[in-house]
């Protein structure tokens, strides 16, 4: 028997618990969830996952042979719905769209989702425990500045490339020119159809007169 899935689950569990341990707000959320068991069944790829919440984090286990009634809530969904769920999509909407089904305590799913989505990691505090307050603050500030510069540079580069391609070098038509061209082509198509109809009518008239 391969131990790869067990290893993967152990790795994910360890990572999540390490992240939760770094969120100052996690203990109070975990206290509310503690003792609850959530069963997640994924269709395509077929996968089942048992999540046990406890005051220090969560345990991820493969729910082998554990009956469904041992869980406080059982959630069935596909990979797409899981992505939407973790992307912050409303659980009610997913339920109404039939992408998600929940048996048992539906609120447990919402609380579990919020626990992960509302993670607010105190990276600077964690760095400070390793490097000291001042170096950690300087490093964090530097990273924040680099991140802001990266976002600004990305946005400016997109704008500059668009301006060069559409306006200066005119390598591609702009959105406005494209719309204009599409309108002209539509008009040409309508006019051509009309002309074809008129020619047909004349053709029929000539054929009728020749037969008299």
């Amino acid at each position, binding site marked *: 028997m391969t*131990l790869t899935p067990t290893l993967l689950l152990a790795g994910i569990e360890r990572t999540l618990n390490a992240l939760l341990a770094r969120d100052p707000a996690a203990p109070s959320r975990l206290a509310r969830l503690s*003792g609850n068991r959530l069963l997640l069944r994924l269709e395509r790829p077929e996968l089942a996952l048992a999540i046990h919440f406890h005051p220090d984090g969560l345990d991820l286990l493969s729910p082998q042979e554990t009956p469904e009634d041992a869980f406080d809530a059982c959630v069935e969904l596909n990979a797409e719905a899981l992505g939407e769920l973790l992307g912050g999509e409303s659980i009610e909407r997913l339920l109404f769209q039939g992408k998600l089904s929940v048996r048992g305590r539906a609120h447990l799913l919402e609380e579990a989702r919020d626990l992960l989505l509302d993670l607010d990691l105190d990276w600077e505090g964690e760095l400070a425990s390793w490097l000291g307050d001042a170096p950690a603050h300087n490093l964090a500030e530097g990273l924040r500045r680099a991140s802001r510069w990266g976002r600004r540079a990305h946005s400016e580069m997109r704008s500059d490339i668009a301006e060069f391609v559409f306006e200066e070098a005119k390598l591609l038509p702009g959105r406005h020119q494209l719309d204009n061209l599409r309108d002209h082509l539509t008009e040409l198509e309508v006019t051509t159809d009309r002309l074809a109809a008129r020619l047909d009518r004349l053709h029929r008239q000539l054929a009728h007169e020749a037969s008299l």
Partner: protein
Amino acid sequence: MSPLSSPGDKHTTHFGYQEVPVDEKASRVADVFHSVAARYDVMNDLMSFGIHRLWKRLTIERSGVRPGHSVLDIAGGTGDLTYKFSRMVGPRGRVVLADINESMLRVGRDKLLDNGVGGNVEYVQANAECLPFPDNTFDCITIAFGLRNVTDKESALRSMTRVLKPGGRVLVLEFSKPINPLLSKAYDEYSFRLLPRMGQMVAGDADSYRYLAESIRMHPDQETLQQMMEAAGLERVEYTNLTGGIVALHRGIKL
């Protein structure tokens, strides 16, 4: 392993590759574990490259333990399984960590208390051959890497079956026989050459780790242990080979 009869009609049993009087085995095994208790976790990680954690994790997944259950972790040593079980059974359940060795039990208790585990865990120094619990007490019984050190394995399995509730399950995680001959050869080299040296370097005790390798070879193979569990009164006994059969997880149910 059952006690054997020597030509002198004196009951003997295996202690690694040696044959020792039955009365002596428990104390000699105890000496081994007194010697390694303090470094037991470090050595386990080193010897198995950390894979023992995955083997134990799989045992927990197969246990089917639920909130409110009673679990007996025999030869629980430093409490790896008990730690997880205590969270799974919750405040309404209970976990009994039992070990015949006082040093191991003390290390396990200290480790669990340091990790904030207390309310639902009890510690019992007990011999697996005559468990001090009433009939039909536990929903699940585990023995991880402990059965091969028991003098009379049949008695231990019968005792476990007795204290198990009907419908409950016994899980035996133990070293076994590799199924691939090449792996078996590499495993022998590792066990008899490298392991005692690692034991000497880390725990300062090569003999104990030599005993470990020898006791693994003397332990019944997968099929034999399955038959022993069935003979003890367990039903639907099945096993799963892990890491090529170096370890096997046997599971039986009391009906």
